């Protein structure tokens, strides 16, 4: 489903080259649930953004369903994201001036779903995450846990095959975090592929595979007793 081939990303920071990702090769199968762990600045978000077609590598290839993402234009990648990928952000990134239901309608609008259909589908998504009674509330009128659930509903709106979650539990209390991970497991059980960046060992443990990043390099944590995840395949 997702593949990285010898991907390197270097930045210029104060005229000094900084390596964000170093010769990363990785394969994530359809229906997999992968946790990306590692210290701050290790390149986890860089890798996630590259998988989402939002950050071009300095070298190497990133493939989604066999299509090389960065051989396409930015707009073509946007269309692929809209069709196949759902993002979940640590800070939820809800549009502040739109209500919960309108936020969920945004990806439907981008997917050219007729307006009449948008509201019904968005309401169904919010109902699924337990927010049927919060449709017309703006983000500031919701708790952080509710905001993250709106973000999950928005992510689900276009029925994505791949979910890329960047610290989805980072701002949540343990109870709400467990609830969000529960939703992600549920989505994974439906056959969606999930890649989740996390600092939270308990959240990471719930994934099928754990991949550690250290200074931009991928490490196989398959046999580690700290993160006893099942993953041993696909890690370079």
């Amino acid at each position: 489903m997702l593949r990285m081939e010898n991907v390197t990303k270097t930045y210029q920071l104060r005229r000094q080259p900084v390596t964000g990702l170093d010769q990363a090769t990785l394969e994530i199968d359809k229906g997999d649930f992968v946790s990306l762990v590692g210290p701050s600045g290790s390149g986890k978000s860089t890798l996630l953004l590259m998988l989402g077609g939002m950050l071009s590598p300095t070298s190497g290839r990133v493939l989604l369903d066999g299509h090389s993402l960065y051989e396409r234009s930015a707009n073509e990648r946007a269309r692929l994201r809209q069709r196949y990928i759902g993002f979940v952000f640590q800070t939820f990134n809800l549009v502040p001036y739109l209500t919960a239901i309108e936020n969920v309608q945004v990806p439907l609008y981008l997917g050219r779903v007729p307006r009449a259909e948008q509201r019904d589908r968005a309401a169904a998504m919010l109902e699924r995450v337990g927010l049927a009674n919060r449709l017309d509330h703006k983000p500031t009128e919701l708790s952080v846990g509710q905001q993250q659930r709106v973000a999950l509903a928005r992510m689900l709106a276009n029925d994505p095959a791949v979910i890329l979650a960047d610290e989805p539990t980072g701002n949540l209390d343990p109870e709400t975090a467990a609830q969000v991970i529960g939703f992600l497991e549920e989505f994974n059980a439906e056959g969606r592929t999930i890649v989740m960046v996390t600092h939270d060992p308990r959240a990471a443990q719930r994934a099928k595979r754990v991949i550690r990043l250290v200074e931009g390099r991928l490490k196989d944590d398959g046999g580690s007793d700290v993160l006893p995840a099942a993953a041993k395949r696909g890690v370079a």
Partner: protein
Amino acid sequence: MSLGTLVWRELLERKAQMLTVAFGIILGITTLIAIRTISFYSEKAVARELDSLGANVLVLPKSVSLQDYYAADMHDEVIPEEYVMRLTMSDLQGVDNLSPKLCVPVTIDERRYSLTGILPKSEFQAKAAWAGAGIFSRPIGCGAIDVGEPALEDDKKSLVRKRVIKDLAADEVLVGADVAARQGLKEGDSLTLLDKAFTVVAVLPETGTVDDSRFFAHLHTVQELAGTGEVVNCIEIVGCCKEIAAGLVEGVNTLLPDAKVVTVKQVVDTQITLNRLMERLSQIFLAIIVLVGGAGIANAISANVTERKREIGTLMALGAESGLIQRIFLSKALLLGLVGGVGGYALGTILAVTLGPKLAGVPVLPMPSLVLWALAVSVGVALAASFIPAWRASRLDPVATFRET
């Protein structure tokens, strides 16, 4: 959800910012509309005043000087009346009125006056209409435009201002103010000139010119009484000043090579200078408002882009293409431009109508045609000023929406 919802909700979310920008655009357009409306009406008022000074182009026989014409208004030199038809049937641009004249001396009670033959406009206009061509077959948009005054077209007294009258019968005569006073003539009186009986159809208002000492009769009657044949002493032309500057005189010269064509330079120059001044003033204000207003809008939209970076990145992550991001900001600019254009037109018109008469001393009326102009300027400036910030937004690095861990 639609583009409109996204734009409108954001505008409502930042009401103060929106109102500040809209207010700025409204103020700019208000200034432009007020200046343009007042200057339009003051230009027309000046044109009307200058028109009342009389003809601004004279067609004279070659040997006659302008001085001769003004000094005595009578000379023996003549040009063929046929020149009138030549002018009427030509494709010359900018001729408002034509008035051929033939002056012959008459004596009443041992006092010498001028009997001036004039050709009513209806006669040569009708001939041109039969031919389906000529200078009166198209509307003329220059010169005297009355503001809120009834038209004097059918009034015989309009001769003193318009230089022509519409109709005049063979036995009718118009009397200058001086002549009427000295001879005790009034409307409806009868008198005999060159052995022909005439009826006074109007006493002309005082003009302070040689016209006050004239009798005006039909040109063909005067030609017949004086036995001159089909000739005139001069043809007065009331031409559009802009067209005179653009070559009307040269056109008449080419058409009538055997006549002398002179302009009443001061009249023409005054109006040309004034029109140019108004135009320049309007252009300078337009330039200032476009620059200052444009910079203000660009700054506001630019700040809006910076403020909404995270939102833009989120939309991109959700699959928004660069075109949509641009449209979000350009639609906002379009909306502000529309509000600014309509509001500015309304406010500018109110300002012009209320303050115009006090400032410029002329009656000012609303000019509905300026709505489109106001909208074009405000929307054009808003869109042009927002283009670069919108383009920058569409090229933002969406990575900024993620926190590097």
